[in-house]
């Protein structure tokens, strides 16, 4: 009694994976080479997490021209900016990214420095400012008067309210209570306590407005707006996220490598590893190098997930090959037959699994936006590549390693070895 099943796959005409495989493998290797070439030349379109900077998502009540937004940004000294429409035209929504991490432009710093010198001619004022951690300016004054914090407040903060918020004195250096000893050291009872202005340098910390605050305030000149999202990542955080991301990818690959080493023998493991490396790299090529999607922390997560998925696809097929490699399979032709059989047997599983997985990732890509959409797109592309590489590339690699590096098990004299059979000795 044979049952009929609903199926898309006609098992009567199996696909010759063993023959097509090497061609796909060549194609895959060429694309890998392209990836390696494009990565340094074209570069990735880094997302905010990795590049650092500020990004605002704003929605205007009335239509606004991108040129108008850009000119406002340039007027405020945000020369390096990106202005992108978000959603449909009627939404009036914009993504605005600036590279600078601080509300102070170079011109601002210069102007402040001049102002400072004019206000404190005797204090040899020094302005310390680092653009990479730029939410504060440090002002150094030599031998300041008691009320210099007030004077500084008046000279800088009040005059530059757009830029600055508060002045804070670095406490403790201010007054030096000196014990002046009159008439010899021993006679301490006669000592007079005296407050003297400190002659050294005093540090004042001037807190700056946030970049996002400054941006939204200056953009308000274009019409009423709602700030829907603010992202700010400073240079140090961006740097540590980059290292952590790379480390995570390495760790995941190392983990998978160890798992593969435990799971497979020497003929299977290299193929599994190459296929596993191949898939995330090609996803990187298609989505981030050619597609120019922004590469952000969720992208690293997506690549890691692809690694997991693609190893799994390979394992299912290799397991089936191993299951069917009985002791009497000796010639390369037999091995090819086994491989073809195994891939065809698991073919419907491979296709159905990738289909149901795509049924969940594609809706996410359709309905969401921004980083999560990139994430879903990367996964979808990666899963398709992963399936193709499991079906074609992994078997081809197995055949390659089996053919070129096979060492026959040591056999007792008189037994027929594989080589003998292949050479037609027997």
């Amino acid at each position, binding site marked *: 009694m*044979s*049952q009929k099943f*609903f199926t898309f796959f006609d098992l009567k005409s199996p696909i010759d994976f063993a023959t097509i495989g090497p061609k796909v493998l060549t194609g895959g290797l060429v694309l890998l080479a392209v990836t390696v070439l494009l990565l340094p030349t074209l570069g990735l379109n880094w997302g905010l997490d990795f590049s650092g900077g500020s990004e605002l998502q704003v929605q205007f009540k009335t239509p606004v021209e991108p040129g108008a937004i850009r000119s406002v940004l340039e007027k405020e000294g945000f020369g390096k900016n990106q202005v992108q429409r978000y959603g449909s035209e009627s939404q009036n929504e914009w993504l605005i990214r600036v590279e600078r991490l601080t509300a102070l432009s170079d011109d601002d710093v210069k102007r402040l420095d001049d102002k400072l010198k004019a206000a404190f001619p005797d204090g040899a004022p020094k302005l310390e400012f680092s653009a990479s*951690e730029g*939410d*504060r300016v440090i002002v150094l004054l030599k031998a300041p008067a008691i*009320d210099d*914090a*007030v004077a500084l407040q008046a000279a800088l903060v009040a005059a530059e309210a757009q830029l600055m918020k508060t002045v*804070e004195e670095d*406490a*403790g*250096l201010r007054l030096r*209570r*000196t*014990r*002046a*000893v009159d008439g010899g050291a*021993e006679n301490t*009872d006669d000592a007079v306590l005296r407050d003297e202005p400190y002659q050294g*340098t005093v540090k004042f910390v001037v807190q700056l407005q*946030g970049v*996002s605050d400054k941006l939204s305030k200056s953009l308000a000149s274009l019409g009423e707006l*709602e700030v*829907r*999202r*603010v*992202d700010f*990542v400073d240079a140090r955080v961006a740097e540590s996220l980059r290292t952590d*991301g790379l480390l*995570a990818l390495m*760790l*995941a690959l190392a*983990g998978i490598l160890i*798992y593969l080493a435990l799971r497979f023998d020497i003929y299977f493991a290299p193929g599994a590893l190459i296929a596993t490396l191949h898939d995330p790299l090609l996803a990187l090529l298609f989505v981030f190098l050619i597609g120019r999607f922004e590469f952000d*922390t*969720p992208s690293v997560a997506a690549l890691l997930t692809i690694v*997991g*998925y693609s190893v*799994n696809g390979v*394992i*299912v097929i290799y*397991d089936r090959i191993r299951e069917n490699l009985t002791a009497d399979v000796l010639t390369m032709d037999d091995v090819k037959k086994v491989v073809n059989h195994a891939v065809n*047997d698991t073919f419907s*599983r491979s296709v*159905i*699994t990738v*289909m*149901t*997985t795509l*049924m*969940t990732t594609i*809706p*996410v890509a*359709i*309905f*969401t*936006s921004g980083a999560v959409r990139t*994430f*879903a797109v990367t996964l979808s592309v990666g899963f398709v590549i992963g399936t193709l590489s499991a079906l074609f590339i992994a078997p081809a690699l197995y055949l390659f390693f089996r053919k070129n590096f096979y060492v026959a098990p040591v056999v007792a004299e008189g037994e027929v070895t594989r080589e003998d059979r292949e050479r037609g000795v027997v």
Partner: protein
Amino acid sequence: MQNTVWIRLIVVVGLLGLAAYVMTPSVIYFGLSPDETREVQKDTAAFKKYLPSWAPESHIVPGLDLQGGVHMVLGVDLDKAVSDRARRVSNRLRTDLEEKKVAFTAVDHLGEEGKGDRVSATFGSDEAIATFDKDMAENYADLSEVSRSGMTITWRVHPDWVAKVRADAVDQTIKTISNRIDKMHVTEPSITKRGDDQVQVQLPGFANPEEAKALIGRTAQLEFQMCDDENDFMTRLTDLPEWSKLETSGYQRNNGAYAQDIYIDFPEDRLKDVRQYLVGKVPSGTVVKYGRLNSRPGEEIRWRTHTLKAEVNLTGDDLVNAQVAMGSPEQPQPYVAIEFSPTGRQLFGDLTTKNVGKRMAIVLEDVVDSAPVINEPITGGNASITMGGSRTREEMIKDANSLALVLKAGALPAPITFREEKTVGASLGRDALDAAKSASMLGILLVFGFLMIYYRLSGAIACVGLVLNLTFIFAILSWLGGTVTLPGIAGLLLTVGMANDANVLINERIREDLRAGKTARSAVQGGYSTAFSAILDSNITTAIAGIVLWQYGSGPIQNFATTLLIGVVTTVFTAVFCTRIFFDLLLVKDRDTLSI
């Protein structure tokens, strides 16, 4: 396996019951109306009244990207904390030398050298140095000597102390920020340490990053406000809660007039309720703040209200210095002496001149510290907060020290910088939630539809398995009080897609066996046992990626990893254990055909 099918069914039904139990709060939470949600967001305790008494309290929390909110990473300036430490030691050394009458000309904190960890003292004589070495040096274990030339000794803060100060600074920052955020009425804020010198702050439902930054980073938390003792609105409150009582204590003003301090006395844990109770009852121009009542050790701690004029007359901005003074024989309590800036001096002088005989509240971090009567105008620019209460002198000195420190350093032990900030507006959060809902619906419908068309009844069984899978994931998340973000939902959907792989592996094997002519029962048995190793493999590789992600990620990425990892466990359980029960039930009557 056949004969255990009923037992297995009972196990699964039991687990489902447990899942329903732990999920109850989450289901209720997400079923709240927008108004109720806002109420619960303002006050976590309010959620209890929507819960049946038997239900647990932890529920799934929508992430920042779904409900809007602020995420920030703050850097703590640890060098400054060490420098502060050096400065305090130099102050201590100076006072010490003065008290012990050791001759010296100067004690300095060398702010500019060695990242500010240097202290130097110039002594008046060789004998003075000898006295210091003999009698005092042992008290300065937190310093290590760097150099000695002539009458001058230079120290640096001892490396052990530096390590301690740095660690303390981050912990203290977290504590201080937590205290400040408590006053913002944000539900379930999370304030955690990240790396050596960073603090991560998450404020769900909070929309204004600049306001949050101002509150977290502000230095002024000391306020002086006049008490409004003429206002007797409290005497007219007729529906005071039973656990509170109205108290009046009279005092004589120095112009002979008699005034009354009217307040509500209540147990400490009712602070929120009193706040709630007074909403809408306080006349305009007046605010009610709260302070601790003195209590003896072992007694219940009680709080009281203070009726104050709304105007804040003076803040910590106008403060230059705060120091601990040890008190005198006449007035033995230690106190904190406050020194005002010139502007502060002026304001404080005016205020005290105008209000002689009235009480002025000293409000620290929104809590009334004390409300002394102004006996005479204070124009010298100095004020003091006296330590009270029935505590030991040591405790009072400790309190005075921390108060002075709080006042001086603006409560934060070291300056902070904002290194990362992500804000999602509430409207964007709603859009994201809608997107997540649509994507989930479409994804799940597609998968279920496909499975039922392709595998018929066996596909339906797979769908039941997936529903169970999702139920268990939600139950575990709810039990953990986990957060669900947009990437988390993507992880959930991905789990559905990949969990399906297990069903497909099993069903394809069953089909193969049926094609080979096996009976339905042995095909099912064979399908499950041969597919098991592949299912395990698939989930182990996903788990490896998930664990690495969980380690690497923060926030949304970690969330994705969490759902993925929980999904791995529930997938193996539902796809292998649960769905098998349904096949076995189908085959109980020994049927030979299987809809697959």
